[in-house]
């Protein structure tokens, strides 16, 4: 579904991505693991058009995405839940969700709203509340719900577990797995490797701008290097 081929991205003079190649198949959950600064967020931002690339290619079902502005990439079926949630603090919960469906003109918006509320009943309770007053967990639910309102075929998730209590993390990951089972393909960036590998089909390990390891989630879980560096085993 998504093919990334030797992608090069620079921040000014800093060479942030040095030829990243990866693929995501239809219906998969693929996770991108790595430490701070490895290039995980940069990869997602390039996929959704927020950052320009200087080499390589990104194709969604054969069509290149490079050079397409972010507001048109959404129309092609990719929704991005950014790092740190980035909900619109001053808009209400409902308005945030409405913004998620901004680019859509089809009649399914009301139905998708009901689905998001079914997935996150808390959001329904708080729909008239200003989003900035939500708790961290609720904000993460809103960020995911907002992305789902775009009815994406591919969902990019950047650190959904960040800053959340363990019990909430589990809940969020269950939801992500549920979203995938309903047919949405997912590319998941996580620092919490154990959690990510528990729901992913496949994974890639990113180090200083390049893929150093890839394989099925089960293989990565067994890999001694992954266990040492990302799963906290000594």
């Amino acid at each position, binding site marked *: 579904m998504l093919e990334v081929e030797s992608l090069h991205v620079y921040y000014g003079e800093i060479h942030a991505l040095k030829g990243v190649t990866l693929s995501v198949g239809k219906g998969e959950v693929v996770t991108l693991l790595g430490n701070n600064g490895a290039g995980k967020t940069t990869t997602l931002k390039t996929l959704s058009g927020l950052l320009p690339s200087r080499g390589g290619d990104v194709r969604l079902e054969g069509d290149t995405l490079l050079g397409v502005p972010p507001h048109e990439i959404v129309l092609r079926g990719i929704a991005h839940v950014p790092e740190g949630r980035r909900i619109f603090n001053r808009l209400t919960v409902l308005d945030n969700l409405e*913004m998620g469906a901004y*680019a859509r003109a089809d009649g399914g918006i009301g139905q998708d709203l009901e689905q998001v509320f079914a997935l996150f009943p808390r959001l329904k309770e708080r729909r008239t509340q200003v989003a900035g007053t939500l708790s961290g967990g609720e904000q993460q639910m809103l960020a995911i719900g907002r992305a789902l309102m775009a009815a994406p075929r591919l969902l990019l998730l950047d650190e959904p577990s960040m800053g959340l209590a363990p019990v909430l993390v589990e809940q969020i990951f269950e939801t992500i797995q549920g979203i995938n089972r309903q047919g949405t393909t997912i590319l998941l960036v996580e620092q919490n490797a154990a959690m990510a590998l528990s729901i992913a089909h496949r994974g890639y390990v990113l180090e200083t701008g390049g893929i150093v390891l890839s394989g099925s989630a089960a293989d990565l879980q067994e890999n001694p290097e992954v266990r040492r560096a990302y799963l906290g085993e000594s």
Partner: protein
Amino acid sequence: MDLHLLIVIFPQVLLDGLILGFMYALIALGYTMVYGVLEFINFAHSEIFVVGAFVGVEILLMLKARGGLELLSPFLILLLLLVAGMAVSGLLAMAVERVAYRPLRGTPRLIPLISAIGVSFFLQDAIRLVESIWRNAFNLVYPTMDQLNHRFTLTETIDVSVKSVVVIVVALLMLWALHLLVNRTKIGKAIRAVAEDQATASLMGINVNRMISLTFLIGGAMGGAAGVLFGIQYSLINPYTGFIPGLKAFTAAVLGGIGNIPGAMVGGLVLGLLEAFAASYLSLLTHGAFGAEYKDIFAFSVLILILIFRPKGLLGEVVRERA
């Protein structure tokens, strides 16, 4: 001190203050909306306002030359002036953004600011040049419309002219319409989303540049309407008329909390009322030691005091970011 006089003139002063305040509020919206999305002060906005006033006077003078002022209903004429003034000012503001600000996006903050000051001078002298060639004069007077100058005498000391009522009613309608647009429509919410976080707004499928253009269009149109109302109310205009009202409207925007739309409305009204009350009461209260010419000093002293205690402005919110 003549307490009786103070009380008797109160409604009249209140009315003057409201008219001035609504005028400031309409202009302040242009500053605050643009600041909201770009965090930049559009110093050319005072000229956008003046262009509206000139569009109004030109239409009136042309109608007058053809005898249309007597033929048409003054309210129809007023509607025509407002629509034309809003359209020209709005489109001009949009064009200014496209030509003078957009190419500078991403540069250090001071650069677009200097560009805005340049646009301001450019527009002043462009109006002066055009009017000098066209009418051989650039100080123009709004032709009077008798029906608008009619005054209702309410009491011995208070009378209200039709045009004052018109100015207040039109300003209220525009503020109400803007409120609905920004808070109730999808486009309005998209503008607010862009104001809060451009990158994330673009991830929603919102075309950020289009929303910025739209912000200039709406802010410019409000400024143009204010220009027409200013001409109707105070009659005399020239290409440099915008400077003082512009500066005061900018102050009103800061007073209300820059970037905050209801704040611009409140700030405009507070500043207008302060000025009107200072103009009428200072001399009475101080037995002539301070005359009406001290109104700005008084008004701005109060402003400084308010901003010392509320640096974010009257309605400026501190949005708490939660982890």
